[in-house]
């Protein structure tokens, strides 16, 4: 929900006349898209799937809670890092290490979700 609000707020900013003149605002388009699609949509799916997919077992109904939390922490850390580093990198060419770290964190989040969810998707 926070990402949805933040992304739409960025969308408003990107449509203002100042957006074409201020370098920082010209660089926010990828940030806007990824806050919306990864921060809101994908994370909403992660949350609902974790909640409502078939139980893994009576002892571990949602699979590994640790992997579930790891996906949450990694995705948000990676995405926030990206939101800060990507415009900064576009303007200055710096923050490259942060971009690479952000890429690795988000990738690990996606893989953690897939690994935890895969065994819960099965025929009854």
């Amino acid at each position: 929900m926070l990402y949805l609000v933040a992304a739409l707020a960025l969308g408003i900013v990107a449509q203002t006349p100042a957006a074409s003149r201020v370098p920082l605002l010209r660089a926010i388009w990828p940030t806007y898209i990824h806050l919306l699609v990864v921060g809101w949509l994908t994370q909403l799916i992660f949350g609902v799937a974790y909640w409502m997919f078939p139980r893994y077992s009576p002892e571990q109904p949602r699979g590994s809670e640790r992997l579930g939390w790891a996906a949450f922490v990694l995705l948000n850390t990676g995405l926030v890092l990206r939101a800060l580093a990507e415009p900064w990198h576009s303007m200055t060419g710096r923050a490259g290490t942060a971009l690479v770290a952000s890429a690795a964190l988000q990738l690990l989040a996606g893989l953690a979700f897939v690994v935890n969810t895969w065994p819960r998707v099965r025929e009854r």
Partner: protein
Amino acid sequence: MPKLSVCLIRASLAYLAAGFVMGAIMLADRALPLGGWVIRLRPMHIEFLLLGWTVQLALGVAYWILPRFRAGAERGRASLAWAAFALLNTGVLVVAVGAAVGAPPIAGLTGRCAEGLAAAAFAAHAWPRVKVFGAGPGAGAEG
């Protein structure tokens, strides 16, 4: 969970993993240039995550969870939903791989047609299942 939902949702998870791998490569490439081939991943990244992951997951969950019929086949015309599964995946792969390898435009058009037919087939399947609780000719609905 019915078999078709398992197929749709597992396929969507595979696209999620593949799409995230491509996204990570493209993002890292901005700081550590990996070569000109990375830009070719972009259409594949978008296609995999938008249609392969998000849309396919929605179809899988919808097939599983939409109201079922009390009489006859409980999920209605399953063949239409299976056709949607086959068409969607064919379309996603044709569009994505075609764009990545620089295939002629007819490949992209063919893939998009397959995706459009997938949407139409799934809509035709799901339409009768979307109704007010207990309504519908000859068939009640249940969770």
